[in-house]
Protein backbone atom coordinates (compact mmCIF):
# COMPACT_ATOMS: atom_id res chain seq x y z
CA UNK A 1 0.00 0.00 0.00
CA UNK A 2 1.24 3.49 -0.78
CA UNK A 3 2.67 5.06 2.40
CA UNK A 4 1.43 8.46 1.27
CA UNK A 5 -2.21 7.37 1.60
CA UNK A 6 -2.42 7.27 5.43
CA UNK A 7 -0.50 10.58 5.57
CA UNK A 8 -2.95 12.17 3.14
CA UNK A 9 -5.87 10.73 5.09
CA UNK A 10 -4.47 12.16 8.32
CA UNK A 11 -4.03 15.55 6.65
CA UNK A 12 -7.63 15.31 5.45
CA UNK A 13 -8.87 14.54 8.94
CA UNK A 14 -6.87 17.44 10.37
CA UNK A 15 -8.28 19.75 7.70
CA UNK A 16 -11.83 18.65 8.52
CA UNK A 17 -11.07 19.22 12.20
CA UNK A 18 -9.88 22.73 11.36
CA UNK A 19 -13.21 23.45 9.66
CA UNK A 20 -14.99 22.84 12.95
CA UNK A 21 -13.15 25.89 14.26
CA UNK A 22 -14.71 27.92 11.44
CA UNK A 23 -18.22 26.82 12.48
CA UNK A 24 -17.44 27.69 16.09
CA UNK A 25 -16.17 31.14 15.17
CA UNK A 26 -19.16 31.76 12.89
CA UNK A 27 -21.69 30.88 15.58
CA UNK A 28 -19.84 32.81 18.25
CA UNK A 29 -19.92 35.93 16.07
CA UNK A 30 -23.61 35.44 15.29
CA UNK A 31 -24.42 34.85 18.98
CA UNK A 32 -22.42 37.94 19.91
CA UNK A 33 -24.44 39.98 17.43
CA UNK A 34 -27.47 39.13 19.60
CA UNK A 35 -25.87 40.31 22.87
CA UNK A 36 -29.11 40.50 24.84
CA UNK A 37 -29.66 36.76 24.31
CA UNK A 38 -26.54 36.05 26.42
CA UNK A 39 -27.97 38.03 29.31
CA UNK A 40 -31.44 36.51 29.08
CA UNK A 41 -29.96 33.00 29.03
CA UNK A 42 -28.06 33.76 32.24
CA UNK A 43 -31.23 35.07 33.89
CA UNK A 44 -33.16 31.96 32.75
CA UNK A 45 -30.44 29.73 34.22
CA UNK A 46 -30.66 31.41 37.62
CA UNK A 47 -34.47 31.41 37.54
CA UNK A 48 -34.48 27.67 36.78
CA UNK A 49 -32.16 26.95 39.73
CA UNK A 50 -34.30 29.10 42.07
CA UNK A 51 -37.47 27.35 40.87
CA UNK A 52 -36.13 23.87 41.58
CA UNK A 53 -34.74 25.00 44.93
CA UNK A 54 -38.26 25.89 46.08
CA UNK A 55 -39.76 22.75 44.52
CA UNK A 56 -37.12 20.80 46.45
CA UNK A 57 -38.34 22.29 49.73
CA UNK A 58 -41.68 20.49 49.21
CA UNK A 59 -40.11 17.10 48.51
CA UNK A 60 -39.83 14.56 51.33
CA UNK A 61 -36.08 13.75 51.52
CA UNK A 62 -36.79 10.16 52.63
CA UNK A 63 -38.46 9.51 49.25
CA UNK A 64 -35.26 10.36 47.41
CA UNK A 65 -32.91 7.57 46.25
CA UNK A 66 -29.53 6.84 47.76
CA UNK A 67 -26.26 6.80 45.81
CA UNK A 68 -23.28 5.04 47.41
CA UNK A 69 -25.11 5.14 50.74
CA UNK A 70 -25.75 8.89 50.53
CA UNK A 71 -29.35 10.04 50.32
CA UNK A 72 -29.60 12.81 47.79
CA UNK A 73 -31.43 16.10 48.14
CA UNK A 74 -33.98 16.91 45.45
CA UNK A 75 -31.89 19.93 44.38
CA UNK A 76 -28.77 17.82 43.78
CA UNK A 77 -30.89 15.15 42.06
CA UNK A 78 -32.61 17.51 39.65
CA UNK A 79 -29.57 19.69 38.88
CA UNK A 80 -27.66 16.66 37.60
CA UNK A 81 -30.79 15.63 35.68
CA UNK A 82 -31.07 19.02 34.00
CA UNK A 83 -27.36 19.07 33.16
CA UNK A 84 -27.50 15.69 31.39
CA UNK A 85 -30.78 16.27 29.56
CA UNK A 86 -29.55 19.64 28.30
CA UNK A 87 -26.92 17.61 26.49
CA UNK A 88 -29.70 15.45 25.06
CA UNK A 89 -31.40 18.63 23.91
CA UNK A 90 -28.37 19.50 21.77
CA UNK A 91 -28.79 16.17 20.01
CA UNK A 92 -32.46 16.54 19.23
CA UNK A 93 -33.83 20.05 19.75
CA UNK A 94 -30.84 22.12 18.73
CA UNK A 95 -29.90 19.95 15.75
CA UNK A 96 -33.41 20.28 14.37
CA UNK A 97 -33.42 24.03 15.02
CA UNK A 98 -30.06 24.83 13.45
CA UNK A 99 -30.54 22.63 10.40
CA UNK A 100 -34.00 24.07 9.81
CA UNK A 101 -32.56 27.54 10.22
CA UNK A 102 -29.93 26.82 7.55
CA UNK A 103 -32.68 25.51 5.25
CA UNK A 104 -34.81 28.60 5.74
CA UNK A 105 -31.89 31.04 5.38
CA UNK A 106 -30.85 29.27 2.17
CA UNK A 107 -27.33 28.67 3.45
CA UNK A 108 -27.56 24.88 3.71
CA UNK A 109 -26.76 24.38 0.03
CA UNK A 110 -23.84 26.81 0.31
CA UNK A 111 -22.36 24.49 2.94
CA UNK A 112 -22.82 21.43 0.75
CA UNK A 113 -21.12 23.27 -2.12
CA UNK A 114 -17.85 23.32 -0.20
CA UNK A 115 -15.49 20.31 -0.06
CA UNK A 116 -16.63 19.54 3.47
CA UNK A 117 -17.74 16.10 4.60
CA UNK A 118 -21.40 15.80 5.62
CA UNK A 119 -20.35 14.58 9.08
CA UNK A 120 -18.23 17.70 9.57
CA UNK A 121 -21.15 19.91 8.52
CA UNK A 122 -23.45 18.03 10.89
CA UNK A 123 -21.08 18.37 13.81
CA UNK A 124 -20.17 21.93 12.91
CA UNK A 125 -23.79 23.03 12.98
CA UNK A 126 -24.17 22.16 16.66
CA UNK A 127 -20.57 22.57 17.81
CA UNK A 128 -21.27 25.93 19.39
CA UNK A 129 -24.01 24.28 21.45
CA UNK A 130 -21.76 21.36 22.30
CA UNK A 131 -19.27 23.84 23.77
CA UNK A 132 -21.86 26.20 25.20
CA UNK A 133 -24.05 23.56 26.89
CA UNK A 134 -21.27 21.98 29.04
CA UNK A 135 -20.29 25.50 30.15
CA UNK A 136 -23.92 26.05 31.01
CA UNK A 137 -23.98 22.66 32.79
CA UNK A 138 -20.90 23.60 34.82
CA UNK A 139 -22.47 26.98 35.63
CA UNK A 140 -25.70 25.44 36.92
CA UNK A 141 -23.77 22.89 39.00
CA UNK A 142 -21.51 25.62 40.41
CA UNK A 143 -24.52 27.83 41.14
CA UNK A 144 -26.26 25.01 43.02
CA UNK A 145 -23.11 24.38 45.09
CA UNK A 146 -22.31 28.02 45.89
CA UNK A 147 -25.80 29.46 46.31
CA UNK A 148 -27.96 26.50 47.36
CA UNK A 149 -25.41 24.48 49.32
CA UNK A 150 -25.64 21.31 47.22
CA UNK A 151 -22.77 18.91 47.94
CA UNK A 152 -20.96 17.04 45.18
CA UNK A 153 -18.03 14.65 45.65
CA UNK A 154 -14.91 15.97 43.88
CA UNK A 155 -13.67 12.36 43.56
CA UNK A 156 -16.69 11.62 41.38
CA UNK A 157 -15.80 14.22 38.74
CA UNK A 158 -13.56 11.96 36.68
CA UNK A 159 -15.94 8.95 36.58
CA UNK A 160 -18.84 11.32 35.82
CA UNK A 161 -16.85 12.81 32.93
CA UNK A 162 -16.14 9.29 31.63
CA UNK A 163 -19.86 8.46 31.64
CA UNK A 164 -20.67 11.69 29.83
CA UNK A 165 -17.97 10.87 27.27
CA UNK A 166 -19.57 7.48 26.60
CA UNK A 167 -23.02 9.10 26.51
CA UNK A 168 -22.07 11.73 23.89
CA UNK A 169 -21.95 9.27 20.93
CA UNK A 170 -25.54 8.30 21.82
CA UNK A 171 -26.53 11.97 21.71
CA UNK A 172 -24.65 12.37 18.47
CA UNK A 173 -26.46 9.39 16.97
CA UNK A 174 -29.78 10.98 17.88
CA UNK A 175 -28.57 14.27 16.40
CA UNK A 176 -27.70 12.59 13.10
CA UNK A 177 -31.08 10.86 12.99
CA UNK A 178 -32.84 14.17 13.75
CA UNK A 179 -30.83 15.86 10.99
CA UNK A 180 -31.82 13.14 8.54
CA UNK A 181 -35.48 13.60 9.47
CA UNK A 182 -35.23 17.38 8.93
CA UNK A 183 -33.59 16.89 5.52
CA UNK A 184 -36.31 14.54 4.32
CA UNK A 185 -39.46 15.64 6.15
CA UNK A 186 -38.57 19.31 6.96
CA UNK A 187 -41.00 20.06 9.80
CA UNK A 188 -40.35 17.36 12.39
CA UNK A 189 -40.16 19.33 15.62
CA UNK A 190 -43.42 17.89 16.97
CA UNK A 191 -42.68 14.23 16.30
CA UNK A 192 -39.04 14.27 17.41
CA UNK A 193 -39.94 16.48 20.37
CA UNK A 194 -42.36 13.80 21.54
CA UNK A 195 -39.62 11.19 21.24
CA UNK A 196 -37.22 13.32 23.25
CA UNK A 197 -39.94 13.91 25.86
CA UNK A 198 -40.55 10.17 26.18
CA UNK A 199 -36.82 9.58 26.64
CA UNK A 200 -36.67 12.32 29.28
CA UNK A 201 -39.74 11.14 31.22
CA UNK A 202 -38.42 7.58 31.27
CA UNK A 203 -34.97 8.73 32.38
CA UNK A 204 -35.59 10.02 35.88
CA UNK A 205 -34.51 13.57 35.12
CA UNK A 206 -37.03 15.31 37.35
CA UNK A 207 -38.19 12.47 39.62
CA UNK A 208 -36.86 9.03 40.65
CA UNK A 209 -37.69 6.20 38.24
CA UNK A 210 -39.10 4.21 41.15
CA UNK A 211 -42.16 6.47 41.05
CA UNK A 212 -43.06 5.24 37.56
CA UNK A 213 -45.47 2.30 37.01
CA UNK A 214 -43.80 -1.14 36.79
CA UNK A 215 -43.35 -1.54 33.04
CA UNK A 216 -42.07 2.00 32.53
CA UNK A 217 -39.70 1.60 35.46
CA UNK A 218 -38.39 -1.56 33.82
CA UNK A 219 -37.91 0.13 30.43
CA UNK A 220 -35.93 2.88 32.13
CA UNK A 221 -33.19 0.37 32.85
CA UNK A 222 -32.48 0.18 29.12
CA UNK A 223 -32.83 3.89 28.46
CA UNK A 224 -29.34 5.26 27.77
CA UNK A 225 -30.33 8.63 29.28
CA UNK A 226 -31.39 6.91 32.51
CA UNK A 227 -28.19 4.86 32.60
CA UNK A 228 -26.05 7.97 32.10
CA UNK A 229 -28.05 9.89 34.70
CA UNK A 230 -27.84 7.18 37.32
CA UNK A 231 -24.11 6.83 36.73
CA UNK A 232 -23.36 10.55 36.94
CA UNK A 233 -25.52 10.91 40.07
CA UNK A 234 -23.80 7.94 41.68
CA UNK A 235 -20.41 9.47 40.90
CA UNK A 236 -21.12 13.07 41.87
CA UNK A 237 -23.56 12.57 44.75
CA UNK A 238 -22.47 9.20 46.14
CA UNK A 239 -18.78 9.35 45.22
CA UNK A 240 -19.10 5.85 43.76
CA UNK A 241 -15.88 4.65 42.14
CA UNK A 242 -14.97 2.86 38.92
CA UNK A 243 -15.73 -0.61 40.30
CA UNK A 244 -19.43 0.22 40.51
CA UNK A 245 -19.65 2.40 37.43
CA UNK A 246 -17.76 0.02 35.14
CA UNK A 247 -20.79 -2.22 34.39
CA UNK A 248 -22.93 0.84 33.61
CA UNK A 249 -20.30 2.16 31.22
CA UNK A 250 -20.09 -1.29 29.60
CA UNK A 251 -23.88 -1.31 29.16
CA UNK A 252 -23.99 2.26 27.81
CA UNK A 253 -21.06 1.95 25.37
CA UNK A 254 -22.61 -0.51 22.86
CA UNK A 255 -25.93 1.41 22.93
CA UNK A 256 -24.05 4.61 22.12
CA UNK A 257 -22.01 2.97 19.38
CA UNK A 258 -25.10 1.42 17.77
CA UNK A 259 -27.07 4.70 17.92
CA UNK A 260 -24.15 6.62 16.43
CA UNK A 261 -23.65 4.14 13.59
CA UNK A 262 -27.38 4.09 12.81
CA UNK A 263 -27.55 7.90 12.91
CA UNK A 264 -24.58 8.44 10.58
CA UNK A 265 -25.95 5.84 8.14
CA UNK A 266 -29.44 7.37 8.21
CA UNK A 267 -28.05 10.86 7.56
CA UNK A 268 -26.06 9.64 4.55
CA UNK A 269 -29.15 7.93 3.17
CA UNK A 270 -31.22 11.09 3.68
CA UNK A 271 -28.62 13.28 1.97
CA UNK A 272 -28.37 10.95 -1.02
CA UNK A 273 -32.16 10.72 -1.24
CA UNK A 274 -32.42 14.53 -1.34
CA UNK A 275 -29.74 14.77 -4.01
CA UNK A 276 -31.52 12.18 -6.11
CA UNK A 277 -34.84 13.95 -5.64
CA UNK A 278 -33.19 17.33 -6.33
CA UNK A 279 -34.87 18.81 -3.26
CA UNK A 280 -31.90 19.53 -1.00
CA UNK A 281 -32.49 23.27 -0.98
CA UNK A 282 -36.26 23.10 -0.60
CA UNK A 283 -37.72 24.02 2.75
Amino acid at each position, binding site marked *: MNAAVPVARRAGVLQEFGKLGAFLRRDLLIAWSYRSAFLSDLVALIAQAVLFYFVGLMVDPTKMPQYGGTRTSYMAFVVVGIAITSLLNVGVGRMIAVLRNEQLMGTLESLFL*TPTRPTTIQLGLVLFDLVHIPIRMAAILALSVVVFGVEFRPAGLLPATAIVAVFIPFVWGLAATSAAAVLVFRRVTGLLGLGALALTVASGTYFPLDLLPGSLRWSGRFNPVAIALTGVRAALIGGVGWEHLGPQILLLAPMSAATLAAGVYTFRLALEKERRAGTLGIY
Partner: protein
Amino acid sequence: MLAVGLMGGAPGLWPAPHAHTPWAIGVQDVSRYFGAKRALHRVSLTVRGGEVHALLGPNGAGKTTLLRILAGLTRPTIGSVRLMGHDVAAGNPLTHRLIGVVPAGDRSFYFRLSGQENLIFFARLHGLLQRDAVARSREVLGGVGLLDAAHLQVAKYSHGMQKRLSVARALLMDPPVLLVDEATHDLDPEGAGRVRELVRAAAGRGAAVIWATQRIDEIRGFADTVTLLYQGEARFTGTVPQLMAYSIPRTYLLRVRNGGLPVHTLATALAQAIGSRGVITADAGGDPEHWVLSLADGVALGDAIVALAGAQFQVLACQEARSQIEEAFLRLTREDTI
Protein backbone atom coordinates in the same frame (compact mmCIF):
# COMPACT_ATOMS: atom_id res chain seq x y z
CA MET B 1 -30.48 19.53 -32.27
CA LEU B 2 -27.62 21.41 -33.87
CA ALA B 3 -24.19 20.38 -32.66
CA VAL B 4 -21.40 22.68 -33.63
CA GLY B 5 -17.74 22.33 -32.68
CA LEU B 6 -16.55 24.64 -29.94
CA MET B 7 -13.61 26.98 -29.83
CA GLY B 8 -10.15 26.15 -28.57
CA GLY B 9 -9.26 26.43 -24.91
CA ALA B 10 -7.15 28.87 -22.95
CA PRO B 11 -3.92 27.80 -21.27
CA GLY B 12 -4.81 25.80 -18.15
CA LEU B 13 -3.83 27.11 -14.74
CA TRP B 14 -5.50 24.16 -13.03
CA PRO B 15 -4.90 20.51 -12.28
CA ALA B 16 -4.62 18.79 -15.63
CA PRO B 17 -7.85 17.13 -16.72
CA HIS B 18 -7.77 13.41 -17.39
CA ALA B 19 -5.91 12.65 -20.60
CA HIS B 20 -9.02 11.34 -22.32
CA THR B 21 -11.14 14.41 -21.45
CA PRO B 22 -9.74 17.70 -22.76
CA TRP B 23 -12.83 19.52 -21.50
CA ALA B 24 -13.08 21.25 -18.14
CA ILE B 25 -16.82 20.58 -18.15
CA GLY B 26 -18.36 17.63 -19.91
CA VAL B 27 -22.09 16.92 -19.88
CA GLN B 28 -23.17 13.85 -21.81
CA ASP B 29 -26.73 12.79 -22.53
CA VAL B 30 -28.05 14.13 -19.26
CA SER B 31 -31.75 13.74 -18.54
CA ARG B 32 -33.52 14.66 -15.36
CA TYR B 33 -37.10 13.89 -14.44
CA PHE B 34 -39.02 15.14 -11.42
CA GLY B 35 -41.70 12.48 -11.23
CA ALA B 36 -43.41 12.57 -14.61
CA LYS B 37 -42.13 16.08 -15.37
CA ARG B 38 -39.19 16.26 -17.72
CA ALA B 39 -36.72 18.97 -16.69
CA LEU B 40 -33.85 17.97 -18.99
CA HIS B 41 -33.74 15.61 -21.93
CA ARG B 42 -30.49 14.24 -23.34
CA VAL B 43 -28.49 17.43 -22.95
CA SER B 44 -24.83 17.33 -23.91
CA LEU B 45 -22.28 20.11 -23.87
CA THR B 46 -18.58 20.64 -23.30
CA VAL B 47 -16.69 23.70 -22.10
CA ARG B 48 -12.95 24.27 -22.19
CA GLY B 49 -10.87 26.27 -19.74
CA GLY B 50 -10.98 30.00 -20.49
CA GLU B 51 -14.33 29.74 -22.23
CA VAL B 52 -17.58 31.46 -21.22
CA HIS B 53 -20.47 29.22 -22.20
CA ALA B 54 -23.90 30.80 -22.01
CA LEU B 55 -26.85 28.64 -21.08
CA LEU B 56 -29.65 30.54 -22.70
CA GLY B 57 -33.32 29.80 -22.26
CA PRO B 58 -36.64 31.07 -20.97
CA ASN B 59 -37.96 30.35 -17.47
CA GLY B 60 -38.40 26.63 -16.90
CA ALA B 61 -36.03 25.67 -19.71
CA GLY B 62 -33.90 23.57 -17.34
CA LYS B 63 -30.93 25.94 -16.85
CA THR B 64 -30.94 25.86 -13.05
CA THR B 65 -31.51 22.10 -12.99
CA LEU B 66 -28.45 21.61 -15.19
CA LEU B 67 -26.36 23.92 -12.99
CA ARG B 68 -27.51 22.07 -9.86
CA ILE B 69 -26.50 18.78 -11.46
CA LEU B 70 -23.09 20.25 -12.33
CA ALA B 71 -22.72 21.47 -8.75
CA GLY B 72 -23.55 18.02 -7.36
CA LEU B 73 -26.69 19.24 -5.58
CA THR B 74 -28.99 17.16 -7.79
CA ARG B 75 -28.28 13.83 -9.42
CA PRO B 76 -29.12 13.31 -13.10
CA THR B 77 -31.71 10.63 -13.82
CA ILE B 78 -29.44 9.35 -16.57
CA GLY B 79 -26.28 10.63 -18.24
CA SER B 80 -22.89 11.66 -16.94
CA VAL B 81 -21.34 14.91 -15.77
CA ARG B 82 -17.61 15.32 -15.48
CA LEU B 83 -15.62 18.27 -14.16
CA MET B 84 -11.94 18.21 -15.04
CA GLY B 85 -12.44 14.55 -15.82
CA HIS B 86 -13.95 13.70 -12.43
CA ASP B 87 -17.42 12.22 -12.17
CA VAL B 88 -19.69 14.60 -10.23
CA ALA B 89 -22.50 12.08 -9.79
CA ALA B 90 -20.18 9.82 -7.79
CA GLY B 91 -20.93 12.13 -4.87
CA ASN B 92 -17.35 12.82 -3.88
CA PRO B 93 -17.38 16.13 -1.99
CA LEU B 94 -13.85 16.76 -3.23
CA THR B 95 -15.26 17.63 -6.66
CA HIS B 96 -16.45 20.77 -4.91
CA ARG B 97 -12.83 21.90 -4.86
CA LEU B 98 -13.18 22.35 -8.59
CA ILE B 99 -16.20 24.64 -8.68
CA GLY B 100 -17.26 28.10 -7.69
CA VAL B 101 -21.00 28.76 -7.74
CA VAL B 102 -22.87 32.05 -7.99
CA PRO B 103 -26.47 31.11 -7.13
CA ALA B 104 -29.47 32.92 -8.52
CA GLY B 105 -30.95 33.95 -5.16
CA ASP B 106 -29.63 36.20 -2.43
CA ARG B 107 -30.24 33.85 0.45
CA SER B 108 -26.92 32.10 0.63
CA PHE B 109 -25.06 34.25 3.16
CA TYR B 110 -25.20 34.74 6.91
CA PHE B 111 -26.80 38.16 7.11
CA ARG B 112 -25.70 38.82 10.71
CA LEU B 113 -22.05 38.48 9.68
CA SER B 114 -19.99 40.96 7.71
CA GLY B 115 -19.09 40.28 4.09
CA GLN B 116 -15.52 39.53 5.12
CA GLU B 117 -16.54 37.14 7.91
CA ASN B 118 -18.80 35.28 5.49
CA LEU B 119 -15.92 34.86 3.06
CA ILE B 120 -13.52 33.80 5.83
CA PHE B 121 -16.00 31.13 6.91
CA PHE B 122 -16.42 29.71 3.42
CA ALA B 123 -12.66 29.95 2.72
CA ARG B 124 -12.03 27.87 5.83
CA LEU B 125 -14.56 25.29 4.68
CA HIS B 126 -12.43 25.08 1.55
CA GLY B 127 -9.51 24.17 3.79
CA LEU B 128 -7.66 27.47 4.24
CA LEU B 129 -6.15 28.28 7.61
CA GLN B 130 -7.61 31.31 9.40
CA ARG B 131 -4.67 33.57 8.51
CA ASP B 132 -4.78 32.58 4.85
CA ALA B 133 -8.58 32.82 4.79
CA VAL B 134 -8.43 36.43 6.03
CA ALA B 135 -5.80 37.38 3.44
CA ARG B 136 -7.65 35.67 0.59
CA SER B 137 -10.99 37.16 1.61
CA ARG B 138 -9.56 40.67 1.53
CA GLU B 139 -7.94 39.96 -1.79
CA VAL B 140 -11.19 38.86 -3.46
CA LEU B 141 -13.19 41.60 -1.74
CA GLY B 142 -10.76 44.07 -3.28
CA GLY B 143 -11.18 42.34 -6.63
CA VAL B 144 -14.94 42.87 -6.62
CA GLY B 145 -14.72 46.39 -5.21
CA LEU B 146 -16.14 45.62 -1.77
CA LEU B 147 -13.12 46.26 0.42
CA ASP B 148 -14.70 49.40 1.87
CA ALA B 149 -17.76 47.35 2.90
CA ALA B 150 -15.72 44.39 4.20
CA HIS B 151 -16.84 44.89 7.80
CA LEU B 152 -20.43 45.79 7.05
CA GLN B 153 -23.12 43.22 7.89
CA VAL B 154 -24.38 41.51 4.74
CA ALA B 155 -27.90 42.46 5.81
CA LYS B 156 -26.91 46.07 5.04
CA TYR B 157 -25.52 45.30 1.57
CA SER B 158 -27.44 46.45 -1.49
CA HIS B 159 -28.63 43.83 -3.94
CA GLY B 160 -25.75 44.52 -6.32
CA MET B 161 -23.22 44.33 -3.48
CA GLN B 162 -24.61 40.95 -2.42
CA LYS B 163 -24.26 39.70 -5.96
CA ARG B 164 -20.65 40.87 -6.11
CA LEU B 165 -20.03 39.20 -2.76
CA SER B 166 -21.46 36.04 -4.26
CA VAL B 167 -18.99 36.30 -7.14
CA ALA B 168 -16.20 36.92 -4.62
CA ARG B 169 -17.13 33.75 -2.76
CA ALA B 170 -17.17 31.75 -5.97
CA LEU B 171 -13.68 33.04 -6.79
CA LEU B 172 -12.23 32.41 -3.31
CA MET B 173 -10.27 29.37 -4.39
CA ASP B 174 -9.77 30.47 -8.02
CA PRO B 175 -11.68 27.39 -9.17
CA PRO B 176 -11.20 25.90 -12.64
CA VAL B 177 -14.98 25.78 -13.11
CA LEU B 178 -17.38 28.65 -12.46
CA LEU B 179 -21.16 28.15 -12.50
CA VAL B 180 -23.19 31.36 -12.61
CA ASP B 181 -26.97 31.28 -12.39
CA GLU B 182 -28.96 34.34 -13.51
CA ALA B 183 -26.39 36.63 -11.90
CA THR B 184 -27.62 39.80 -13.54
CA HIS B 185 -31.35 39.29 -13.96
CA ASP B 186 -32.28 41.92 -11.37
CA LEU B 187 -29.27 44.22 -11.48
CA ASP B 188 -29.07 47.64 -13.05
CA PRO B 189 -26.99 47.85 -16.27
CA GLU B 190 -23.90 49.14 -14.45
CA GLY B 191 -24.08 46.43 -11.79
CA ALA B 192 -24.72 43.75 -14.40
CA GLY B 193 -21.77 44.95 -16.47
CA ARG B 194 -19.52 44.83 -13.45
CA VAL B 195 -20.49 41.24 -12.63
CA ARG B 196 -19.87 40.23 -16.26
CA GLU B 197 -16.44 41.86 -16.15
CA LEU B 198 -15.52 39.89 -13.02
CA VAL B 199 -16.62 36.63 -14.57
CA ARG B 200 -14.91 37.40 -17.86
CA ALA B 201 -11.70 38.11 -15.92
CA ALA B 202 -11.98 34.72 -14.21
CA ALA B 203 -12.31 33.09 -17.63
CA GLY B 204 -9.27 35.10 -18.71
CA ARG B 205 -7.37 33.41 -15.91
CA GLY B 206 -8.35 30.02 -17.33
CA ALA B 207 -11.66 29.15 -15.67
CA ALA B 208 -14.37 27.38 -17.64
CA VAL B 209 -17.57 29.35 -17.07
CA ILE B 210 -21.19 28.36 -17.51
CA TRP B 211 -23.37 31.44 -17.43
CA ALA B 212 -27.10 30.73 -17.22
CA THR B 213 -29.27 33.57 -18.40
CA GLN B 214 -32.55 34.46 -20.02
CA ARG B 215 -31.21 37.88 -21.04
CA ILE B 216 -30.55 37.42 -24.71
CA ASP B 217 -28.67 40.64 -25.28
CA GLU B 218 -26.03 40.11 -22.64
CA ILE B 219 -24.37 37.15 -24.32
CA ARG B 220 -23.18 39.08 -27.38
CA GLY B 221 -19.57 40.16 -26.83
CA PHE B 222 -19.49 38.28 -23.54
CA ALA B 223 -20.05 34.57 -24.12
CA ASP B 224 -17.84 32.55 -26.44
CA THR B 225 -20.27 29.67 -26.88
CA VAL B 226 -23.90 29.09 -26.15
CA THR B 227 -26.37 26.30 -25.55
CA LEU B 228 -29.98 27.23 -26.14
CA LEU B 229 -32.23 25.26 -23.81
CA TYR B 230 -35.94 25.02 -24.41
CA GLN B 231 -38.31 22.79 -22.47
CA GLY B 232 -35.38 20.75 -21.21
CA GLU B 233 -33.84 20.17 -24.62
CA ALA B 234 -30.71 21.70 -26.12
CA ARG B 235 -32.00 23.33 -29.31
CA PHE B 236 -28.62 24.72 -30.28
CA THR B 237 -25.01 24.40 -29.18
CA GLY B 238 -22.25 26.42 -30.79
CA THR B 239 -20.52 29.78 -30.85
CA VAL B 240 -22.41 33.07 -30.56
CA PRO B 241 -21.65 34.06 -34.19
CA GLN B 242 -22.97 30.65 -35.25
CA LEU B 243 -26.15 31.28 -33.31
CA MET B 244 -26.51 34.72 -34.89
CA ALA B 245 -25.93 33.25 -38.33
CA TYR B 246 -28.82 30.94 -37.67
CA SER B 247 -31.11 33.92 -37.60
CA ILE B 248 -32.22 35.85 -40.66
CA PRO B 249 -33.56 39.21 -39.54
CA ARG B 250 -36.86 39.87 -41.31
CA THR B 251 -38.25 42.88 -39.49
CA TYR B 252 -36.75 46.38 -39.51
CA LEU B 253 -37.58 49.76 -38.03
CA LEU B 254 -37.34 52.44 -40.73
CA ARG B 255 -37.25 56.20 -40.55
CA VAL B 256 -38.40 57.56 -43.92
CA ARG B 257 -39.37 60.97 -45.24
CA ASN B 258 -41.15 62.21 -48.33
CA GLY B 259 -41.84 65.90 -48.01
CA GLY B 260 -44.03 66.03 -51.12
CA LEU B 261 -46.77 63.71 -49.88
CA PRO B 262 -49.57 64.54 -47.45
CA VAL B 263 -49.47 62.43 -44.25
CA HIS B 264 -52.71 60.50 -44.92
CA THR B 265 -51.40 59.14 -48.25
CA LEU B 266 -48.00 58.03 -46.90
CA ALA B 267 -49.08 54.50 -45.96
CA THR B 268 -50.48 53.80 -49.39
CA ALA B 269 -47.43 55.25 -51.17
CA LEU B 270 -45.04 53.23 -49.02
CA ALA B 271 -47.02 50.03 -49.59
CA GLN B 272 -46.98 50.63 -53.31
CA ALA B 273 -43.22 51.27 -53.27
CA ILE B 274 -42.49 48.04 -51.34
CA GLY B 275 -44.96 46.01 -53.38
CA SER B 276 -44.51 42.25 -53.07
CA ARG B 277 -41.16 42.69 -51.33
CA GLY B 278 -42.86 42.81 -47.95
CA VAL B 279 -45.33 44.58 -45.70
CA ILE B 280 -44.86 48.05 -44.27
CA THR B 281 -46.98 49.32 -41.39
CA ALA B 282 -47.03 52.39 -39.22
CA ASP B 283 -44.98 52.24 -36.03
CA ALA B 284 -47.07 51.92 -32.87
CA GLY B 285 -46.02 55.45 -31.86
CA GLY B 286 -47.96 56.99 -34.75
CA ASP B 287 -45.02 59.14 -35.87
CA PRO B 288 -45.32 59.63 -39.70
CA GLU B 289 -41.55 59.17 -40.12
CA HIS B 290 -41.35 55.78 -38.33
CA TRP B 291 -42.44 52.54 -40.00
CA VAL B 292 -42.05 48.78 -39.50
CA LEU B 293 -40.92 46.80 -42.55
CA SER B 294 -41.39 43.00 -42.65
CA LEU B 295 -39.61 41.47 -45.62
CA ALA B 296 -41.08 38.66 -47.65
CA ASP B 297 -39.10 35.41 -47.86
CA GLY B 298 -36.10 35.68 -50.17
CA VAL B 299 -36.15 39.46 -50.38
CA ALA B 300 -32.95 41.29 -49.46
CA LEU B 301 -33.09 44.43 -47.35
CA GLY B 302 -31.14 46.35 -49.98
CA ASP B 303 -33.80 45.69 -52.64
CA ALA B 304 -36.49 47.14 -50.41
CA ILE B 305 -34.40 50.23 -49.64
CA VAL B 306 -33.71 50.77 -53.35
CA ALA B 307 -37.43 50.48 -54.09
CA LEU B 308 -38.23 53.12 -51.46
CA ALA B 309 -35.53 55.41 -52.78
CA GLY B 310 -36.90 54.93 -56.31
CA ALA B 311 -40.32 56.16 -55.07
CA GLN B 312 -38.67 59.37 -53.79
CA PHE B 313 -38.54 58.30 -50.15
CA GLN B 314 -35.49 59.27 -48.15
CA VAL B 315 -34.48 56.38 -45.85
CA LEU B 316 -32.99 58.27 -42.89
CA ALA B 317 -32.38 55.24 -40.64
CA CYS B 318 -32.84 51.49 -40.60
CA GLN B 319 -32.32 49.05 -37.73
CA GLU B 320 -33.29 45.49 -36.84
CA ALA B 321 -36.53 45.36 -34.88
CA ARG B 322 -35.02 42.53 -32.82
CA SER B 323 -31.39 41.60 -32.30
CA GLN B 324 -30.07 38.73 -34.36
CA ILE B 325 -29.67 36.63 -31.21
CA GLU B 326 -33.27 37.31 -30.27
CA GLU B 327 -34.37 36.35 -33.79
CA ALA B 328 -32.41 33.10 -33.53
CA PHE B 329 -33.80 32.47 -30.08
CA LEU B 330 -37.36 32.96 -31.23
CA ARG B 331 -36.85 30.89 -34.34
CA LEU B 332 -35.20 28.01 -32.50
CA THR B 333 -37.75 27.94 -29.72
CA ARG B 334 -40.72 28.34 -32.05
CA GLU B 335 -39.95 25.31 -34.17
CA ASP B 336 -40.88 21.92 -32.80
CA THR B 337 -37.94 20.16 -34.35
CA ILE B 338 -34.71 21.54 -35.71
